[in-house]
């Protein structure tokens, strides 16, 4: 999937620019649910799909940075978050094995994640608009310790990188939001997958109060 869009982009780099952007942004919303649906067919297919997605990511990172400008990646992030959210709220909660408190904690963590990433993006946009990210010792000449972000077209001499998954520059002012967002996203996904897996699998207790999934043998059974 990552593959095909990038090749299309490479083959027709200048044709109908606005339309191409739209397709790139929409495509993940079709690909992600579709891939996940296929992945539920059997254990082998799940592993293949996950490996393919991982390889796609590796391929993206092996490309020169300035080529990864498409909104495809940001859409990928959004679509996979939305898919996970819907699977949890509709599929997992529908099995009636998650308590209201657990659901509340999950939604709380999720809101924190959303808030921090939202803040990160808005700070990045603000920096882009005002150009204040250039640091204290900014000189109009590009010096060896400053960088130029090809995608945002902004010059900074503080720690920075461009996150294609969030489609924005991570600079010193918004780095803390980026980090907090990542931590909360990790916590959210950890809690969500634990709740989900212990719901569909046979769980066991560890230390008397932590539930972990143990036997997931019959997860694929109903489709066979």
């Amino acid at each position, binding site marked *: 999937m990552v593959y095909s869009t990038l090749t299309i982009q490479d083959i027709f780099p200048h044709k109908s620019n606005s339309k191409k952007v739209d397709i790139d942004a929409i495509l993940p919303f079709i690909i992600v649910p579709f891939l996940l649906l296929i992945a539920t067919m059997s254990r082998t297919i799940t592993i293949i799909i996950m490996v393919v997605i991982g390889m796609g990511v590796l391929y993206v990172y092996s490309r020169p940075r300035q080529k990864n400008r498409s909104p495809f990646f940001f859409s990928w992030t959004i679509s996979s978050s939305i898919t996970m959210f819907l699977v949890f709220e509709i599929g997992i909660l529908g099995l009636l*094995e998650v308590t209201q408190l657990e659901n509340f904690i999950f939604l709380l963590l999720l809101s924190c994640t*959303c808030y921090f990433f939202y803040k990160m993006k808005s700070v990045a946009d603000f920096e882009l608009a005002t150009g204040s990210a250039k640091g204290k010792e900014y000189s109009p000449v590009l010096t060896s310790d400053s960088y130029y972000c090809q995608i945002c077209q902004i010059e900074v001499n503080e720690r920075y990188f461009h996150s294609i998954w969030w489609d924005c520059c991570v600079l010193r002012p918004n780095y803390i939001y980026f980090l907090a967002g990542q931590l909360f996203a990790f916590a959210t996904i950890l809690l969500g997958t634990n709740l989900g897996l212990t719901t569909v699998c046979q*769980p066991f207790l560890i230390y008397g109060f932590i539930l972990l999934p143990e036997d997931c043998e019959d997860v694929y059974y109903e489709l066979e």
Partner: protein
Amino acid sequence: MRHPYRKKIIYCGLVIIILIIFLHPDMNGHGTYDFIAKEDILRNLHAETAVNFTSTAVIDCEYYDILWDDTTLSQSLVDGDLVEGHGIREGGEYAPQECKPKYSTAIIVPYRDRAEQLRGFLVYMHTFFRRQRIHYRIFVVEQVDSRLFNRAKLMNIGAVAAMKAGFPCLVLHDVDLLPLRPANIYACSKCPRHMSSSINKFRFVLPYLTLFGGAIAIISKQYKDINGMSNEYFGWGGEDDDLYSRLEASNLKVCRFEPETSRYHMVPHRSTQKGEAKKKLLSSAKERMLEDGLSSLQYVEVATVLHPLFTHIMVDL
């Protein structure tokens, strides 16, 4: 995301999240629920022994320490064997020798095609009951025909056999459930009791408050009053909800013990075939109550065998 309506999107998201929390309280399991407090359990138990049961012991059994027993049995007991000299009589009947039990219970287990699981279940349950000082007997009702499994009808057949044997209290038990806490006493309470309210398969959560399946304890007379369970539920599911609506129609309130005590281990297995048209049956549950149940029970008894660990009733539905 450089749009003026970005804030609106964020607010919409927040509103949706709040709506999900408040509009779907039914989408959640219950970590806790109303239950009989530990100190009230003894008062709520229905003390009665089987009609023809006599004990040679002089003193009455004490149950207080059992209720406060906080040990958890290991499910690996199913792989073991019973200790020698267990004193279990033919047909899987047992009563403590050192004291006179106050409670007699018939454990009714519907069964088909899971020999290994049944062996583990029997070994486990006999080890478990050894700690409870009750008089009990295990009835295994096996469906020998090839129709879909009819759990409720097998329960009815087992209940009839148990009542004939004079048992005042019935425990309707699935073969894949193992009680983990010896404090979960297998005697009837005055209200029909849902015993398996905290199963590991369900994350030790009660999926919904009207759930009344898995392992339940009910006084024989109450079971007769509600005309038993429905005979019409072939295939998995629905019969427990039907039983609940029968109890509801007879104004019998269901009770439970606290979640900690009601812990069960569900032995993993492949789910059985689902039956058809459960919704239609369920919607008419209360109307069918009088004509469908113990009063209309018809079956062919193929054989009844007294095995060392259980009474085996084989039936053709």
